[in-house]
């Protein structure tokens, strides 16, 4: 197996750095150099996908079982998969839906288990104790029993109000329901604010990674 040092080469780093700058040129304006490197990027990404799909999926999971292990029914799976390609023929394109339907069916069938396993523990955990005993204080928590109780109450309150906001089965005319939905809407803003802040953080991390690549890997400034 090759060693870790064999993942990078100065020529590759130079090409990567020039491409990075070319793609960054978009922030000034759309230009020919950007488009050129954009196309190279798409080509490389598609080529890499072909490589991985063959070496990681179709090779070990279809070709080897069929031609090395003699599991001939895999030929039928390939035939079924080829139905996807009827989409390129106007006359036969309806057949692609048989294959697409199978994939969608598999996903739909799994939905029962994923929904049950995903949400039932959450529903159970939503019934939080309002009167907390000292042994229920999580390890390392600096809160008192009263503090945790209040937090639990707030947790349930927010969850109910947000659920009310999303309840569209009848018009929210009742004052209590309307107030609850309005509160839920405001609480949602907290959640969206948290998401907004963290989204910004994520984007900055991506930029920092690139700037570090240019400074460290390419220019050896740091």
């Amino acid at each position: 197996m090759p060693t870790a040092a064999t993942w990078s080469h100065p020529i590759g780093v130079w090409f990567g750095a020039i491409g990075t700058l070319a793609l960054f040129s978009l922030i000034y304006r759309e230009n020919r150099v950007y488009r050129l490197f954009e196309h190279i990027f798409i080509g490389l990404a598609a080529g890499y996908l072909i490589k991985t799909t063959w070496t990681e999926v179709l090779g070990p999971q279809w070709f080897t079982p069929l031609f090395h292990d003699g599991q001939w029914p895999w030929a039928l799976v390939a035939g079924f998969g080829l139905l996807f390609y009827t989409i390129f023929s106007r006359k036969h394109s309806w057949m692609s839906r048989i294959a697409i339907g199978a994939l969608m069916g598999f996903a739909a069938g799994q939905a029962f288990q994923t929904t049950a396993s995903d949400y039932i523990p959450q529903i159970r955990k939503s019934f939080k104790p309002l009167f907390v005993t000292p042994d229920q204080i999580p390890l390392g928590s600096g809160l008192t029993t009263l503090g945790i109780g209040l937090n639990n109450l707030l947790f349930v309150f927010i969850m109910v109000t947000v659920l009310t906001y999303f309840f569209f089965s009848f018009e929210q005319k009742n004052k209590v329901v309307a107030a609850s939905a309005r509160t839920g809407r405001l609480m949602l803003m907290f959640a969206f604010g948290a998401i907004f802040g963290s989204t910004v953080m994520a984007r900055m991390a991506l930029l920092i990674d690139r700037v570090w690549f240019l400074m460290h890997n390419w220019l050896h400034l740091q």
Partner: protein
Amino acid sequence: MSNLGHPLTRINRHWLYGALLAIVVIGLIVPISLPLAVSPEATRFYEAIESAPKDKLVLVSTLWSASTQGENRPQTQVVLKHLMKRHLRFALIAFGDAQATTLAQELAEEQAAIYKYEYGKDWINLGYRQDIAGTLKGMVRNINETLKTDSVNRRPLAEYPVMAGVRNVKDLSVIAEFSASGNYKSWVGLVVGSTDAAFCYAPTSVMAPELYTYLDSGQIRGMLFGIKGAAEYEQMMNEKGFTTRAITPVSLALVLLFVLIGLGNYGMYATKKMEGNS
């Protein structure tokens, strides 16, 4: 003039881009050494690895590409380092994005060379699978039968000592997922209930807020909150890696953003005032 608004609402975008770039470069060159409070969820991630028994396998699942490597790469790197420091056996597996398997392989090779980890004996790469749900369903029953071969030598998994005693997900101590996507739902929905292994998640910051409900329910044991989570993990390991340096420009860039939002809003109110006076 008043129709165009206050000057603070009309800053040329190129100045904004320049300011951001300058702040990032300066932050990387001159890191500000400030302590970072370690969050409870990062501590639980660390403790799950720290307390993992040595006779069981740790599964490291990756679903990220270079597009989010700014966050997912340091997360994966620091946890792999921790696994090797503790000399725990681990297996890599990748879903969703084909790049994930090669990027994780590269990181593991890099660390394996430092910690003298032997491929096949101490660690293995189980490769990339397109369909996460179908694969996870299979792994709950039988890992070897589902995945068949490794990704490096393409040999049957049963031939590798690292896979000895591993039949299905029940034989794992920790499942650590590094992801740029919402595939935690597949793990939580199809695997978590079938094993005692601690499921720890390292998402990008974008996704982190939506995972607190799973931390509350205990379906996810620990979490690394994007790049900041990686920095916390480095701190717990007494390491000074890339994220310890990168957290300064992250901080400065966020401060810049809030200053700009403040300026924009001040400009808006100033414009309203100007319009009211005219």
